[in-house]
């Protein structure tokens, strides 16, 4: 049955039916509606969980670190500054192989202070050992949250999974979404059974110091698991489709890639705009397509290569920037084709920082620019008049 829900509330519903034992969070816009709605479920008795509103995001992440170490399913959510404050703890959670599910309501990072949407915050967590999945719309947010719990808690994975959804654009928008029945979720998501956890009957030490003889192996193990996750994710996806009867993309979504000469690669809610432009341009006879990346970590290299190897012109639209280099996704795709036959011409665009508009006009311009020389890092929809004393962008 479909419900007309706000993005944040849809996520809260999805989390509710996964029945976490502990939820801990600290308010930050635009994440707050998610945990507020969960607090309502707890108050009304619909959700039996320990809900703890703590004194900072650092504490929120630490609370779920503790509850997960006890083997209890746990959930938290944050944005921007809050997520960055959690960073230290999230590295810890990944290193301890604890299956946290966390929502990132993507928001720009200050200074200057901006509560608006881009994807710089989750990009900063790229290397933490956290699986990152980006959603385009609210239904995908619901589905990928259910998938995230299953993936994180798979005994072969045991890594935190972060579901990234664009702040405001998705968290505060309404959409008719299908929330699965609790019984369906129960058959998809078995109760959490951690083999190694804090247990008074079987004492063990967790997270103690590891010297040069052992540390590197722990990182190697996470890297290997990330690679294995590429094999495991399609398996779990099959289960999901079987239970919900709904398709789910877990690596990426190919949109009109057949015979495409030009493709824009994008991530998150902007994909809707890109796809619409693709439709229009296809109607006009242009051979264009789009690829929406969902799984950023692990990065499904082989699968992406197979999908894109025949495309001569590619544009990558980043909604974050690795300052001093270029768009982080752009770098990934450049590396993906390095040394391979028939390397396409790949251009990089930066757009939508702090929720600057990316309209259909801008997407069309990007497609047009792919015909010209390869661009490394071009800001789209930049207002040169506002640069004031800063060096003029050339």
């Amino acid at each position, binding site marked *: 049955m479909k419900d007309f829900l706000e993005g944040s509330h849809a996520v809260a519903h999805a989390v509710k039916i996964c029945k976490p034992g502990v939820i801990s969070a600290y308010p930050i816009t635009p994440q707050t509606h998610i*945990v507020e709605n969960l607090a309502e479920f707890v108050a009304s008795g619909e959700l039996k969980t320990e809900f703890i509103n703590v004194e900072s995001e650092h504490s929120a992440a630490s609370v779920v670190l503790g509850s997960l170490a006890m083997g209890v399913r746990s959930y938290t959510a944050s944005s921007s500054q809050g997520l960055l404050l959690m960073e230290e703890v999230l590295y810890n959670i990944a290193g301890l192989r604890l299956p946290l599910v966390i929502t990132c309501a993507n928001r720009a990072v200050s200074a200057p202070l901006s509560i608006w949407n881009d994807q710089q915050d989750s990009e900063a967590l790229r290397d933490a050992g956290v699986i990152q999945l980006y959603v385009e719309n609210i239904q995908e947010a619901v589905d990928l949250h259910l998938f995230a719990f299953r993936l994180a808690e798979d005994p072969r994975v045991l890594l935190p999974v972060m579901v990234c959804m664009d702040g405001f654009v998705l968290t505060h928008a309404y959409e008719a979404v299908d929330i699965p029945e609790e019984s369906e979720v129960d058959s998809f998501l078995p109760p959490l059974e951690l083999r190694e956890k804090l247990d008074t009957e079987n004492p063990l030490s967790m997270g103690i110091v590891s010297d040069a003889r052992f540390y590197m192996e722990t990182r190697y193990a996470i890297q290997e698991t990330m690679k294995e996750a590429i094999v495991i994710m399609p398996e779990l996806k099959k289960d999901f489709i079987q239970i919900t009867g709904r398709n789910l993309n877990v690596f990426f979504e190919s949109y009109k890639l057949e015979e495409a000469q030009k493709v824009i690669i994008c991530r998150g809610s902007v994909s809707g705009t890109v796809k619409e432009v693709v439709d229009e341009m296809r109607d006009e006879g242009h051979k264009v397509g789009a690829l929406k990346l969902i799984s950023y970590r692990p990065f499904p290299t082989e699968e992406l290569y197979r999908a894109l190897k025949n495309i001569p012109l590619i544009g990558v639209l980043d909604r974050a920037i690795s300052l001093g280099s270029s768009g982080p996704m752009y770098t990934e795709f450049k590396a993906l084709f390095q040394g391979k036959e028939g390397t396409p011409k790949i251009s990089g665009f930066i757009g939508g920082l702090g929720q600057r508009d990316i309209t259909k006009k801008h997407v069309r311009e990007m497609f047009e620019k792919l015909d010209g020389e390869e661009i490394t890092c071009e800001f789209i929809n930049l207002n040169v008049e506002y640069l004031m004393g800063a060096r003029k962008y050339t």
Partner: protein
Amino acid sequence: MSISQDYTDYIAWDRLPHMWCPGCGNGIALKGLALALAKQGIPRHKVLMATGIGCSGRAGSYVSFHSFDGTHGRTIAFCTGINVAQPDLKIVAFLGDGDCGAIGGNHLLHAARRNNDLTVLEINNFTYGMTGGQFSPTTPAHSFSSTSKHGKVDYGMDMCYLVAEAGANYVASTTVYHTAQLNKFINEAISTRGFSFVEIASPCPTYYGRHNNLRSAPEMMEWFKERALPKEKYDELTIEEKQKYIMRGRLVQRDREDFLTMYMNELNNE
């Protein structure tokens, strides 16, 4: 720059109207600060307002002197840096209860312990207003908020006693209803050398009030009028009773050496 005598000189009138809700107490506290600066004739270039995030964090936009906004919760920490780098600057941190007591609670304790020459005005509206009314560390037990729909299960934090015990030179508490006392306390705080702290209970009818049957600003002001007890009376209450009352009065006024003075003395003794 000439010395100002009029409090209006400290307000950036061209930035008004402000974005605070009708019935918010931030403006009363801000005026209290402007009055104190005018009374002491502190030139505008010699005073800095540091803010955190949330509703009170917008105050920095409405003053005509220096203002600085860094990361959420770290205001007192970067004020410490500003203070040691520029000791002749009068620093006023204008913070909310969340910034001051929750995410930045650690910095509050240690700045008070070190006795850094700062004034912290804590605007206590008992809630996280900007993010939609979640409970904060000062929200009294059993209160309702958007994250405590069945009543808050932990006790509100007594920040004044905490800061006093930590070693501050000046600690006082009042409400925006008791304006004369408020103005006096702010004036005393900024003329104190060392760490000074004033807790200012302020109405948030939009969130705290709405959730707790105090839907209008006048109702909240009535609440302050009834529930703010002089320190002597407040001290007689049990912990449970204190959740229903606000303290008003001065806790500490002393002249311990501040951090920088002590630091320079230690250096000179070597």
